[in-house]
């Protein structure tokens, strides 16, 4: 009797857990990918020595903040 009660409690618990929607929705699982962004203003590509905050050709602003040293992005990546 007691065992039956416990198994039904666990079954209900599992069912409810599976039914419940994940907070923030279902997570998407993505594959690794590579992309490149061209300047929205003039269409020029972004190159390493031009930095990443502004377009090296027309000066279009890609990123508003001034970059500081992070894990992968460094302060040298600010455009001049």
């Amino acid at each position, binding site marked *: 009797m*007691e*065992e039956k009660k*416990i*198994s039904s*409690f*666990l079954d209900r*618990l*599992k069912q*409810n*857990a*599976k039914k*419940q929607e*994940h*907070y923030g929705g279902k*997570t*998407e*699982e*993505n*594959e*690794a*990918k*590579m*992309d*490149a*962004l061209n300047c929205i203003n003039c269409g020029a*590509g*972004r*190159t*390493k*020595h031009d930095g*990443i905050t502004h377009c090296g050709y027309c000066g279009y602003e890609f990123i508003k903040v001034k970059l500081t040293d992070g*894990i*992968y*992005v460094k302060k040298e*990546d600010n455009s001049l």
Partner: protein
Amino acid sequence: MFGLFNKKESGEPLPEWFATLEESKERWFLFLEKLEIKIEELCTAAIPELKELLATDEDIYKRTFHRVYAGVNGQLQNIREKARDTYDDKITEMYENIKPEISVLNPHYNLLSDFRTVCSERYHKDFEQKYEYWPNQLEKAQERDLEIEYQKIVTEFDAIKNKFNCKQCGGNITIEKIFFMTTYISCSHCQTQNTFDPSTQARMLQNFAKELAEQRTSHLYEIYLTENNKERELYHERHELSLSTIHEKDKKVLEQKNIQMDNLEKQRKEVIKNAPKLYHTYLRAMYDEWNKITPDLKEHNEKMYESQINN
């Protein structure tokens, strides 16, 4: 049940309230026994279910598993609360109700205080000890071999590291290391900044890197724990010896025991000095391992290490 109340104090007849106490005590013992059975049945049924759920839960954060885990833990806590509430309602209250009627000098006062002691020990020692065993067992159900997860990421990295081309010139781009967040990779041919977006699986690396490092260095942590626990063991051993000297009259035996006690105290002091050293050894090894798994976080990890050893 234990024959503790069978003694008739000073030959006087037992008071009226004694029967009520006996009945309450019997019921309390039965009640705790039932709760203990319930806890055991719940956990023995839940642990295999939890393990299966952890293995089959497709969510990357294993959220379905964690919900069921929290549910089982909640049920356990409910049982514990039930025991506490009933103890307050039935045992403490009964004791408090009878206490004002009986003076401490009353020959039957012992019956009342024994009632409370026996019931309290059955609850605070036996029941709690049995209860505490189970949350640890449940926690073990959520352990998983992170080496398998790590291996999946390494295999994926090997498969993709030469797969990408520059979006501008089409030149090959080699991914140098396992990235766990979006980053810029410049093309070696045309210098275009390409944005590399790691897979969801690779992104998980920074979430479990520390746990994996802890798994890899757990043997060192065990060594530290064993050493740390020795302090109490040595203390109790010495304490037992010191108690045995109270009525000891033989000077030779006393001398021998004193030497033994000094020796134990010396060992205890040694352990107190040694345990933190072993902890630091473990911590350094763990952080080294962590840095090996995610070298890009080394600077950040080292700051954490510094603050951990200085506190």
